[in-house]
């Protein structure tokens, strides 16, 4: 039995070991309660109850089995956040098949590469991605495609709606005869590696179930939660979607950053799971509105007074702060933040507004939650207490973890797996320390990954490979140049040592202009967060190690 030592809530998370138990269990437990809601472009609210959700999952599972889906077949999902994504995921995993969660923000070529490398046999996708994936169908590298939303116009493409309809008339006898087991792979999630290709992390059914259950022991979310985190990341999928469903709470999903703010206000939620980027956007909005209304000074004063009252343990009531809170976040009073570092000042101002901010820390390879603060044991600046079943130790300051939610390995990459997992211990690449109460604090990164405020991570090696292909470039190092007060407030910068033979007779201005044009072309094929924002020209070669590798931090 799970107790809740830190959140004092009278709540026991149900124990499920596989996705089949999970889908059957939540349908049975929560029935008519609203499970998922979202808003259309015209701001109409659409809702699925737990019963409706699981009916659709069951119908799809039976339908897929009837069409010959075998246990263990890899099924990819390539879609913006929507209910169809979740239904496809639950149908596939409750069938004992691994769901391959494809990152929609990658270039067309990377998307095709992810589908091929993961050996996906079936692909669920939205119409946006159909043209990107048609070459795979034409080349026979993919046998079937299911369209989430939209009508199928090719015989190799079926619509999700038609599969539901066919599945609805099937019965118990049409269920797959095989049940998933806890040690089977449930998710294959892509992660930014330190090598040029993204790695495919395999998470077992048991690992995911364990991690989402333990999240309940640390955080008590209320009735209505909002998340706009992408489902293809373990954070958005496991910590937000699956955890909300496990608790039986009402989750508002958002599929588009463009409407995230609008939907947050429309949803009138009490809790939100997000990344620092969104919290900072709300914070900026607050100050911008105050400035426009000529109330910035009054707001600064109100924060100062409230902070003083809090230090004196006095109740701090402020009409202005109440008004600001109502205008900016409505009924929201709990925010869980992860993926990157959140500014302490912003967290403090949110606390003074009456919004509790709980910071956590996770990594895809750990399904993903490693530690998180608790409602009644929250230390600002820390990333909280480790998950109960995880062993945590610090090796030369690096956070290493072992336990049931650690990945099975990297798909088709025994070498990288052996390097990452030693005797069951996973080295995170993050540096940190624990205080006397066990709270974890992160201080930096050992690996080369560049971490942004939205939790996105960029492997510099991948971009360096692209830039090295420019003939004028002899050597290049991509790094995150500080753009603010914090380590993950960065500008992607390419420092280039040009090939001396190719720049003969050219002025510095001409060299820079040429390189900028070439990098602009590369940027065109990359998502915004991966685009190079600054180009520096070097006059000297980079310092190198004995094996002629560039010393990344000694230049």
């Amino acid at each position, binding site marked *: 039995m799970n107790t809740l030592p830190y959140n004092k809530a009278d709540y026991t998370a149900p124990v499920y070991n596989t996705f089949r138990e999970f889908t059957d269990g939540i349908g049975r437990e929560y029935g008519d309660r609203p499970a998922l809601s979202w808003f259309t472009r015209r701001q109409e609210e659409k809702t699925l109850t737990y019963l409706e959700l699981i009916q659709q999952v069951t119908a799809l599972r039976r339908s897929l089995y009837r069409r010959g889906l075998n246990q263990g077949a890899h099924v990819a999902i390539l879609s913006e956040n929507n209910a169809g994504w979740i239904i496809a995921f639950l149908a596939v995993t409750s069938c004992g098949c691994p769901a391959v969660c494809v990152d929609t923000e990658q270039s067309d070529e990377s998307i095709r590469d992810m589908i091929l490398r993961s050996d996906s046999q079936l692909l669920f996708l939205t119409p946006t991605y159909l043209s990107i994936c048609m070459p795979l169908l034409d080349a026979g590298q993919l046998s079937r495609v299911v369209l989430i939303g939209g009508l199928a116009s090719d015989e190799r493409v079926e619509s999700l709606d038609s599969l539901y309809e066919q599945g609805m008339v099937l019965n118990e006898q049409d269920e797959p005869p095989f049940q998933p087991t806890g040690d089977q792979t449930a998710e294959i999630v892509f992660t930014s590696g330190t090598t040029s290709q993204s790695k495919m992390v395999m998470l077992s059914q048991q690992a995911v179930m364990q991690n989402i259950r333990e999240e309940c022991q640390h955080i008590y979310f209320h009735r209505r939660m909002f998340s706009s985190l992408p489902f293809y990341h373990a954070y958005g999928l496991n910590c937000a979607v699956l955890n909300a469903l496990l608790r039986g709470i009402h989750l508002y999903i958002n599929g588009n*950053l463009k409407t995230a703010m609008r939907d947050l206000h429309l949803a009138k939620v009490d809790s939100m799971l997000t990344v620092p*980027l969104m919290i900072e956007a709300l914070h*900026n909005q607050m100050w911008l509105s105050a400035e426009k209304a000529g109330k910035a000074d009054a707001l600064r004063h109100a924060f100062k007074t409230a902070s003083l009252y809090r230090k004196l343990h006095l109740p701090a009531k402020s009409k202005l702060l109440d008004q600001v809170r109502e205008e900016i976040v409505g009924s929201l009073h709990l925010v869980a933040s992860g993926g990157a570092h959140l500014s302490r000042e912003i967290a403090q101002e949110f606390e003074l507004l009456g919004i509790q901010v709980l910071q956590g820390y996770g990594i895809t390879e750990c399904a993903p939650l490693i530690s998180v603060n608790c409602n009644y044991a929250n230390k600002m600046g820390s990333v909280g207490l480790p998950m109960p079943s995880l062993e945590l130790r610090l090796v030369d300051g690096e956070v290493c973890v072992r336990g049931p939610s650690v990945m099975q390995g990297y798909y088709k990459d025994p070498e990288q797996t052996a390097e990452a997992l030693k005797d069951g211990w996973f080295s995170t690449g993050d540096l940190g320390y624990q205080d006397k109460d066990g709270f974890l604090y992160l201080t930096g990164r050992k690996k080369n990954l560049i971490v942004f405020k939205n939790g996105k991570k960029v492997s510099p090696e991948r971009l360096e490979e692209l830039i090295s292909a420019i003939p004028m470039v002899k050597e290049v190092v991509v790094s995150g140049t500080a753009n603010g007060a914090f380590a993950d407030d960065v500008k992607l910068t390419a420092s280039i040592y040009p090939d001396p033979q190719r720049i003969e007779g050219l002025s510095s201005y001409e060299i820079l202009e040429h390189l900028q044009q070439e990098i602009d072309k590369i940027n065109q094929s990359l998502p915004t967060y991966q*685009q190079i*924002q600054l180009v520096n020209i070097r006059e000297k070669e980079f310092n190198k190690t004995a094996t002629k590798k560039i010393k990344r931090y000694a230049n």
Partner: protein
Amino acid sequence: MLQLIQDIIYNVTGKRNITYETDFVQDLALNSFDVMNIISAFEDHFDTTIPTREVWHLHQVKDVIDYLAQKGFTHP
């Protein structure tokens, strides 16, 4: 059109001094969330949808104006 875009960017981000050549990321230091909020404001104003993957190609103010012109949207 430039005036309209200046107003939209100011309303969303509080940033001023916008020209045709202003780059959202390099000059205004906007993050992906700010850029999406601006695009969302354009969508509302012109009652259109700009697919997220097309947003990647809109770096400068003039790219947005060209994009909207291609879609048939002009503004006095």
